C-alpha cells in the first residue's frame, strides 16, 4: 500500500528542499521543485514515496541545470532589471561567499560521490542511498568517506587559492 503522502510531506519536505537547494542553489526554485515532486507523487502514488521523491527531485534538478545552461544567453534580457544581489545586506553577501565556496567544493566531487553525500545529508539510510545510486550497500561507507574528504579538501584549497577557485 502506498505511504501516506501527507505524512511523508511533513517529514520529508524540508530535507527535499535542502537536497534540491544544493543542486539548483536557489531557495525559491528548490521549494518550487520540491512541491512539484510532491504534486507528481500525488498523481503517481509510488510505493516508496520517499525514495521516489528523491529520484524525481534529482532528475528535475538535472533537467533544471541543463535548462539553466541553455537559458543563460536569454538572461541578458533582464539586465535592465533592478539588481537584487547588489542591494543585499552585508550578512547576505557573506552567506553568498560561503555558498559559492561550498558549491565550488561540491562541484569537485564526482557525481556519484556528491549524490551519495547529499542523500546522506538529506537523512537517507545506506540502504536507501544504495537503492538510489546503484552502489552496493557495502560501498556506501567508502563512498561517503571519499566524498567527505574531497569536500573538505576542496573547500580548504578554495580558501587558500582565494577568489579564483571560489568563483568556479
Amino acid at each position, binding site marked *: 500500500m502506498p505511504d501516506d503522502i501527507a505524512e511523508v510531506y511533513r517529514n520529508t519536505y524540508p530535507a527535499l528542499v535542502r537536497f534540491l537547494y544544493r543542486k539548483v542553489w536557489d531557495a525559491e526554485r528548490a521549494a518550487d521543485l520540491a512541491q512539484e515532486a510532491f504534486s507528481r507523487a500525488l498523481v503517481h502514488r509510488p510505493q516508496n514515496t520517499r525514495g521516489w521523491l528523491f529520484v524525481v527531485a534529482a532528475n528535475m534538478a538535472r533537467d533544471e541545470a541543463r535548462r539553466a545552461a541553455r537559458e543563460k544567453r536569454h538572461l541578458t534580457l533582464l539586465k535592465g532589471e533592478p539588481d537584487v544581489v547588489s542591494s543585499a545586506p552585508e550578512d547576505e553577501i557573506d552567506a553568498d561567499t560561503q555558498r559559492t565556496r561550498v558549491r565550488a567544493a561540491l562541484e569537485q566531487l564526482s557525481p556519484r560521490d556528491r549524490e551519495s553525500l547529499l542523500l546522506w545529508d538529506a537523512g537517507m539510510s545506506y540502504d536507501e542511498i544504495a537503492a538510489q545510486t546503484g552502489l552496493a550497500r557495502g560501498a556506501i561507507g567508502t563512498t561517503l568517506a571519499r566524498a*567527505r574528504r574531497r569536500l573538505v579538501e576542496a573547500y580548504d584549497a578554495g580558501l587558500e587559492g582565494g577568489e579564483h577557485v571560489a568563483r568556479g
Partner: protein
Amino acid sequence: MSHVDEGTLHAYLDGELPSSERVALEAHLAQCATCRAGLEEERALRARASTLLGSVRPPERAIPPFEALRRAPRRSPWHVRTPFAWAASIALALGLGYYLRTPGAAGPATTNAPQPVIVAEDRAASGERQKASAPAATVSEGRRRAPVPRPTEQVAHVNQPGDSGAANVSLRDEAQAAQAKARIANAPESVAARLGRETLRLDAVTVTAQGEPAAAPTPARAERERAAARAPSVFIDGSVVQPLTAKTWPVIDRRVATLLLGDEAPVGLPGLSVRDFRRAPGNDGTIVVEQALDSSTVIQIFQRPASNAARPDSGYAFSRLFARFVGRLRVEIAGPVSVDSLNRLLEQVKPLP
C-alpha cells in the same frame, strides 16, 4: 584483524555498520591505537563535512500547507512542447506543397528538381542550422534579442534552393500563415486532396491566430476572441494571456487587496511601479498586481491565499501559468515576455513594500 579501512569507520560513525561487524570493529579498536587514532581523524572529517554542508542550507521557512499541493498539479514539462505540434504540421504541409508543385515531380524517387529542405526546428537547433542561410539567420538574431513569446521562437522553415529567390519562409504571424495556405491552395487538385489533413490543420491555426468570430461562441472561443482583440496577441507557453477589463476585473486599492489576501501584503516585482491592483470576478481571494516592465510591457502577477481553493467560476483560468508560493500566497505570473524571463521574474517576486 588488519587495520580498518576508512569506509568501515565512516559506516561505523554513521551508525550503519551491521551489528556483527560493529562488534568485531569495537573489539579491534580496543586493542589497536592506530585505528583508534584513525577513527578520531575520520570523526573530525565527518563533522567538518557536515558543518560545511550545513552552512549552505536554504533559509528556514514554513512548510506550505499540504492541501495547497492537491490543487496545484503543475504543468508537466511536456506541456511546453505540445503547442508546437501545429508548427511541425505546417512545415510538413508547406514542404509537401512546394515539393509536389514542382513540375515533373511525380514521386520522390524520380525527380531531378532541387529537393526542398524541410526544417522544423526547435530553439536548441536553430542557432547552428541557421548559420547556413543568411536571411534566416538575420531574422533569428533579431528575434533572439527581442522579448518575444516562445512560440515564435519555434520557426518553421521551408528551404527550396531552386525556387526563384523565395527560399525561406518563416511562419511568424497569421499573414504569413495565410500566404502559406494560399501556396498550398495553388497546388494541383490531387495535391490539395492529399494534403487535406494538413490544410485543415492550417485552417485551424489561422483561425486561432486571427481570432475570427464564431457563430456560437463557446467559453474557450470567447476567451480567444477577447485575447485576439488585444494586439498583439500574447502567448504564454502556448496559452493566451487574458486581457483584464475593468468590468470583469475591477480595479481596487491596495488596502482592499491586502484584505482579500487575508492581511498579507500583495507581492510584486521590487523596483517596478504598480499600475493597478485588480480583483478577480470570483470570490476566491485572487487579486492581480499589474506592473509595467516598460511602456508597452505589462507583467501580471496573480496571487491568492494558498489556503483558498480556486473557484472554477472565478473567471480565473491561469492554472497553467508558472506558479510558486511566496509566504502564504500562491503566485502566478503572466506577461508578453519569454518563458525564461517569466520564470526569472517570478523568482524575484517579493512582498511589495
